[in-house]
């Protein structure tokens, strides 16, 4: 099957070669050089990745089966940390938060980013619009956290605004109760993260061959049809990047929660990464924290493999 495809590709190649390639051939007419190995191209990336991953992952796996608390020599305690983690009464709430973060990240920044990228492309002033949505991404996490904390605080800017326009009924302690604390932080994260999605989809849209768009326009396609029939299918590669990255990042949500609520009050807004950090670095329970890290890592790996695998397989025959 794949041989046939390859053959037909070869056949097509001969007839559809660009002029510059044909010219070059007549000049040099050389055989294919042996050159460097296919695997040579992986070496720099692999070295960097392994250099910072091997020891930390090994160490975390080791600590996760010990009772390490930093000072005394750790004792081997088998899977006890994992057992304790699974019976943690707050675990369900934490996992629910992770799920909310993940779904919301797929729905909000990804969807809004796609809408904005599509609308912006080809419009006058597109560079200005894109820059506006990118501004939050440029800011440091320190500034973004301080800003949104002050917006959602009980005495904060959002409540002041609601009072001034006569919507006292909607005044709320945004960060003090579940689930509005998680929702408030998701809004902040959406504000900060949409710009990245806009640029990624812009790159994808720019890459759609112009003649396919023109042909459809000549055929009388309106912009709705144009988007779904021409642009959307050709965004499949960039879509995988956006969704894959959004999934991995939302499962590991840490910074914004740590800055805005610290996971509180009474752990109601914790995510797995926050639980892990609090256990390991505030309570010095390295063994227990490492077990959570291993669990989180397995979760991210599973979700990423499942979500990307279909795409990878299809491309394998390319």
């Amino acid at each position, binding site marked *: 099957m794949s041989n046939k495809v390859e053959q037909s590709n*070869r056949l097509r*190649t001969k007839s*559809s*070669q*660009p002029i510059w390639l044909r010219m*070059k*051939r007549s000049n*040099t007419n*050389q055989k*294919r*050089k042996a*050159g*460097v190995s*296919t695997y040579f*191209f*992986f070496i*720099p*990336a*692999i070295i*960097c*990745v392994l250099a*910072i*991953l091997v*020891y*930390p992952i090994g*160490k*975390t796996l080791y600590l996760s089966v010990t009772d390490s608390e930093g000072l005394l020599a750790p004792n081997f305690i088998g899977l006890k940390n994992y057992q304790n983690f699974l019976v943690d009464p707050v675990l369900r709430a934490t996992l629910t938060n992770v799920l909310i973060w993940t779904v919301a990240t797929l729905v909000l920044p990804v969807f*809004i980013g796609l809408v904005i990228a599509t*609308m912006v492309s080809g*419009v006058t002033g597109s560079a200005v619009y*894109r*820059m506006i*949505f990118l501004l*939050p991404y*440029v*800011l440091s996490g*320190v500034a973004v956290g301080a800003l*949104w904390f*002050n917006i959602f*605080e009980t005495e*904060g*800017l959002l409540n*002041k605004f609601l009072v001034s326009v006569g919507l006292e009924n909607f005044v709320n302690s945004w960060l003090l109760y579940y689930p509005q604390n998680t929702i408030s932080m998701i809004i902040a994260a959406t504000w900060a993260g949409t710009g990245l999605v806009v*640029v*990624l989809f812009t790159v994808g849209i720019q890459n759609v061959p*112009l003649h396919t768009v023109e042909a459809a326009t000549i055929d009388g396609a309106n*912009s709705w049809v144009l988007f779904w029939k021409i642009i959307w299918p050709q965004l499949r590669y*960039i879509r995988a990047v956006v969704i*894959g*990255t959004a999934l*991995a990042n939302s499962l590991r949500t*840490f910074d914004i929660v740590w800055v805005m609520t610290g996971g509180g009050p009474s752990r109601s807004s914790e995510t797995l*990464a926050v639980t892990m950090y609090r256990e390991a670095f505030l309570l010095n329970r390295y063994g227990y924290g490492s077990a959570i*890290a291993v669990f*989180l*890592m397995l979760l*991210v790996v599973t979700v*990423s*493999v499942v979500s990307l695998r279909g795409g990878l397989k299809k*491309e394998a025959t390319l």
Partner: protein
Amino acid sequence: MKKDSVLKHSVLIVLSLIWLSPIYLLIVNAFANVETWEANFDWSIKGWNPVENFQKAWTVADLAPGLKSNFFYGIMGAGLSVFFASLAAFSIVALNPKNKSLWFWVIYAVNLVPYQMLLLPLFESFAATGLYDTRWGLLLVYVAIAIPFAFFLSRNHMLSISKEVVEASQLDGASKMQTYFKIFLPLSWSALGAAFLFQFTWIWNDLVFGLTLTTSAEIRPLMSTISTLVGQYQNIKMPIVLCATLIASLPTAFLYIVGQRLFVAGLKAGS
């Protein structure tokens, strides 16, 4: 067609205003009068001292060494990671190596690990190998963490490059290196440019690896410097902190304004 774009512009303007209002709050409060500043942010303009606050932020926070280091980390880190990532992506897409999936997941692995988990072990291994508090040590971490996204993005962008172009060039006797430099690199310019901008920004704004793996002022990156100074002097008020982060964000904002044109225009010329 015209009706279309009026509608588009109205939606975009509404969304832009929503996106800009927190920026307004940030700027109003960053430039507020420090003397009369009370603990909280405000909607109204309470004093307008941009120059004074910027000067104070610059001198109090001592931003110059951090800025210098950041340019090194940002340019080298983003540049190397995008280059290494695009080499690997090229091999996976064009050279048909065995065990494609395995290579993919090994290089992508950093993106699957919670970064907080890396902190202590990296500190240990850096202390043991003499990489602690060195530029090259921190750079290695930045490059490694920036590789997976750059790899994923460039790989998927390269998948859209026609297979026929690759085969034609190979039939013509182009070496692998030539195929990479003459065909894939130019055709991936937009994706690689975007990857560079994102990774530059990520490295530029990094706080926690800088805090964990460095200690001296010349080595420490900018955000880590700002955050420690805030901790040391309780009397530094919020507007000054915000001004310091605004100064820190100017180079990245500038890069986006220039870079966006480059990678959008570059693509149009290329396709």
